[in-house]
């Protein structure tokens, strides 16, 4: 039985090791006694004799450990690890301090890096969210505004835009009175164009998203609901799919849910086809359009600078075609992430740098503590000078 055999070998090695250890102890003790006797017969007091004899004892402990290790066939890294474990076991307080210090450094760095990873690297729960941008307009004075629906439409049709972007879409926001049980609440609602869900790239955990048919003006009224409102106000009822609720006095069927954290725009709890928006005349106006968003997805390999350059032509053209509303306004953009969490990137990167610096400091600290211990060494340094003349050297090299 292989298990028993291994156990026997291990037990035997343990016994052998102890035997070797004992033998070395006896040999050293004998040597020490002989040395003390010699010193006494040379005229020293017993105390001096013993002290003198012990001075020579320096490299012996190390030698004993090395003998053990060589007999167990360790060398190189294994040897160093065993030395480390032994010396740490000899001074548990130091070991505890060192381990706690390193743990602190690692803990801080891990916490910061996981935040940064979550916010900057992973970002929003949309497909390739780093390429989603919010489209804005900016005038010569540096003021920003959200573009109107007609402007977004013109942008969509422009070939220069198509070169830089996979898609571009307009969203109208409004508050809708929704009956929930006995009460009526105003819920933020996003009126979206047909390409919206495909553009952001998201999959519903339950039900489905809006389809092309849903966007027909005469289609039955449907909506997609946010995960959070479903949990908070609809009790996470699994029967929500297919249920009809009153939205702005219009019976609307809920066809699906968005995944948690996927609410864009941030205020929205319902997504409804823009074709069913009651106030269509608002959507026809040019110029400033509050309560709206225009978002786009950059093509792979295109960055916001080149995208903005690609849009300059259409921007200037609209400015000349509609001077009062569009004159002087050029397209600009921001990563979608910034709208949601603000421009935290510099702050988070600084935080990461600081955390890494802390970790480096911690490691340097522990390293110097270890060095201090090593150079202090066992017994005294006088033993080193005594045994040096006849070439002690570490038996690592041999």
């Amino acid at each position, binding site marked *: 039985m292989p298990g028993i055999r291994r156990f026997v070998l291990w037990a035997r090695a343990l016994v052998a090791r102890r035997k070797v250890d004992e033998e070395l102890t006896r040999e050293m003790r004998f040597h020490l006694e002989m040395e003390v006797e010699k010193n006494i017969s040379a005229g020293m007091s017993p105390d001096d004799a013993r002290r003198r004899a012990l001075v*020579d004892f320096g490299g012996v402990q190390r*030698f004993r450990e090395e003998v053990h290790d060589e007999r167990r066939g360790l060398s190189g890294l294994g040897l160093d690890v065993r030395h480390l474990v032994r010396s740490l076991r000899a001074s548990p307080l130091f070991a505890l301090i060192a381990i706690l210090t390193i743990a602190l450094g690692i803990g801080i760095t891990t916490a910061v890096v996981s935040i940064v990873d979550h916010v900057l690297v992973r970002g929003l729960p949309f497909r390739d969210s780093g390429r989603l941008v919010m489209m804005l307009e900016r005038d010569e004075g540096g003021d920003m505004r959200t573009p109107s629906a007609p402007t977004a439409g013109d942008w969509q049709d422009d070939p220069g835009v198509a070169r830089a972007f996979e898609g571009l879409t307009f969203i109208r926001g409004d508050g809708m009175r929704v009956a929930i049980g006995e009460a009526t609440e105003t819920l933020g609602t996003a009126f979206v164009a047909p390409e919206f869900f495909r553009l952001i790239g998201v999959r519903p955990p339950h039900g489905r998203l809006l389809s092309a048919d849903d966007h027909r003006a005469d289609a039955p009224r449907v909506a997609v609901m946010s995960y959070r409102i479903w949990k908070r106000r609809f009790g996470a009822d699994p029967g929500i799919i297919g249920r009809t609720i009153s939205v702005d006095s219009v019976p609307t069927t809920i066809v699906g849910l968005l995944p948690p954290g996927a609410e864009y725009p941030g205020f929205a709890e319902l997504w409804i086809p823009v074709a069913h928006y009651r106030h269509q005349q608002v959507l026809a106006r040019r110029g400033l359009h509050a309560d709206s968003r225009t978002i786009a997805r950059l093509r792979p390999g295109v960055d916001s600078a080149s995208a903005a350059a690609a849009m300059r032509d259409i921007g200037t053209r609209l400015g000349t075609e509609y001077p009062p509303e569009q004159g002087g306004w050029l397209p600009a953009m921001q990563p979608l992430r910034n709208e949601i969490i603000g421009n935290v990137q510099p702050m988070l990167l600084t935080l990461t740098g600081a955390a890494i610096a802390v970790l480096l400091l911690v490691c340097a600290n522990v390293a110097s503590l270890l060095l201090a211990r090593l150079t202090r060494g066992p017994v005294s340094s006088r033993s080193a000078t005594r045994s040096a*003349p*006849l070439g002690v050297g570490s038996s690592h090299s041999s």
Partner: protein
Amino acid sequence: MSRAADVMQGTLDLLILKSLSLMPMHGWGVSNRIQQLSRDAFQIGQGSLYPALYRLEKKGWVRSDWRTTENNREAKYYDLTAAGKRALGAEVDSWRTFVSAVEMVLETSA
């Protein structure tokens, strides 16, 4: 009084082998004998002695066993093996060659 002299590791092996060739001895005895024979020039501490003995034993040039001393104490005695005797001869030869080479250089320098 002790005087420190710089000697290399190989030379220590040579001294130990020579010392053991006269008579099997325990570790302390070897170091004591070398000290006497060299008129106190060489004082070998445990830190150098026992690693060297261990090395020689691993090479198969000495063997060890536990015996009782005259004072009825237990000590580990070392003895030269046949290979050790041959090695001693070789080491002495290479030492003498080394020394005469150094002498040759020293004599010719102006």
